[in-house]
């Protein structure tokens, strides 16, 4: 059953608003894939009521890691949890990054903005195992928003960092780095996760350069497993478009499928 009522936090690391938990949960770790997410209860009371969707950051035998940023009341409560405590978790849910069909292209550029870097670490290691050459582009507002850059280096991954304020790495948006890197060497595929404007821009770059891109969408969710129909995104179909569930039909979609609404 995709439910662990007592996943133990066996390691916790914090950098300001960013936190990493390693969770001992053999049952949930078993079939977990990069791009999937967990639904975590952040309180033992009905306040706040809903679980919070948090993407998978890494998998190691019987453990799963999550890396998240405090973004509101729910994640603030989650951040207060300590090593040795347990969490009630559903999941993993959703369709992941690695496409079932159409093969694995090489090289693959992994583009992460802010907390959107979280699922790309898991993905990078899996792609490496599959023999895909990977380059990670990691952008944030400032140096403080790149807390896990060393983790990629330690894993032997090729990484390029950027900051909006120039405090570390390339001065500018990660999408600027992407354009430069594409001119240097055109990748076979892009894997993307970050804020909506950054993902939209990445989708435009991918389309202009004729590169397939897998994009992981973020949304507030009621349930996480397809029952509430609350987390929808406009996805192309024969009739123009339809509202599809991010939790069940995503969270990862092909860039060309996504219809970016002006106001959401």
């Amino acid at each position, binding site marked *: *059953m*995709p439910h662990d009522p007592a996943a133990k936090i066996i390691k916790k690391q914090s950098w300001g608003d960013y936190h990493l938990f390693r969770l001992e949960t053999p049952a949930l770790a078993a079939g977990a894939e990069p791009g999937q997410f967990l639904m975590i209860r952040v309180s033992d009371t009905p306040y706040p*009521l*809903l679980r919070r969707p948090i993407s998978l950051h890494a998998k190691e035998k019987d453990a799963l890691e999550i890396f998240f940023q405090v973004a509101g009341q729910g994640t603030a409560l989650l951040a207060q949890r300590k090593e040795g405590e347990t969490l009630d978790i559903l999941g993993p849910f959703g369709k992941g990054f690695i496409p079932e069909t159409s093969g694995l292209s090489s090289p693959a550029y992994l583009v992460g903005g802010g907390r959107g870097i979280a699922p790309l670490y898991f993905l990078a290691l899996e792609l490496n195992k599959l023999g895909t050459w990977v380059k990670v582009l990691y952008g944030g507002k400032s140096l403080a928003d790149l807390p896990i850059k060393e983790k990629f280096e330690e894993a032997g991954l090729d990484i390029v960092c950027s900051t909006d304020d120039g405090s570390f790495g390339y001065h500018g948006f990660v999408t600027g780095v992407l354009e430069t890197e594409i001119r240097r060497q055109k990748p076979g595929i892009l894997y993307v996760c970050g804020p909506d404007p950054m993902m939209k821009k990445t989708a435009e770059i991918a389309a202009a350069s004729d590169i397939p891109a897998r994009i992981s969408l973020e949304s*507030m969710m009621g349930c996480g497993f397809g029952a509430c129909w609350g*987390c929808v995104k406009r996805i192309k179909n024969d009739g123009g478009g*339809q509202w599809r569930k991010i939790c069940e039909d995503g969270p990862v979609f092909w860039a060309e499928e996504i219809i970016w609404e002006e106001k959401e």
Partner: protein
Amino acid sequence: MTPDLSVDLGFLKLRNPVLTASGTFGYGLEFEPFMDLAKIGGIVVKGLYYGPREGNPPPRLVETTGGLINAIGLQGVGVEKFAAEVLPRLRRIDTAVLVNVCGASDEEYLKAIEFLDSLDGIAAYELNISCPNVKKNGLCPALGPDPTYALVKQAKAASRRPVIVKLSPNVTDIVEIAKAAEEAGADGLSLINTLLAMAVDIETRRPKLANIFGGLSGPAIKPIALRMTYQVAAAVRVPVIGLGGIMTGADAIEYLIVGARAVQVGTANFIDPAAAARIAGEMKEFCVRKGIAKIADLVGTLKTD
């Protein structure tokens, strides 16, 4: 002693009083990985219009204190796809399947009922009378006793199955509407649907829902729903199904005491997908602790002297 949890709605016997609320349980199958659906009284599937429905743009959900406001807009597959893809799989499950029926006009409700009547494996219909009527400036039948009476009368005449009418709390006098539904031939009443609500982002001064308004559910609405269930149960003879904010067995027992013969679990399903079965178990424990042999004996036993 194992208490008898079964309840008799007259038109339908349930193994226990716990149903799942429409709109919070998908088409039922989504919950199979988490729970044995044969452990609950029955499921009420997501509201179905005759045709597929597109639903509202996002954001569709906002969490509030002890509650959840939704404006999904009844996105759904329509009766034909439901019959082809969902119902055959639901028939294999040993639980009562109730279908929540929607319509943008009286005619559309009847068209959906006519189609569903041709299918096997449905125990009853729950008429969602809170759908905006496109022919009447978007007003829904639930808002007045006359349109409620007219719709229920037609639905009963058209249907070969029992019809439960789901009442809206967004009215001046819910008892008046309940009586109109009963008079028109409703076999049962379920209440309450969600409370019309809104939330505002003070940074942008925009509504937090794209639809501006949505329906509030969750523990925040339970005291209101309980009061309305008490008032309606006292005023009608047909069985009443209570819902609104039930998170625990204790919550459900409260509804039985005020007169509900069964309950529906809604928003709790999102947080705990095994909530309905858990709540049935907690109700059983309550009966054991209190030495109650038959849970139906609790119905309408509120002491007010």
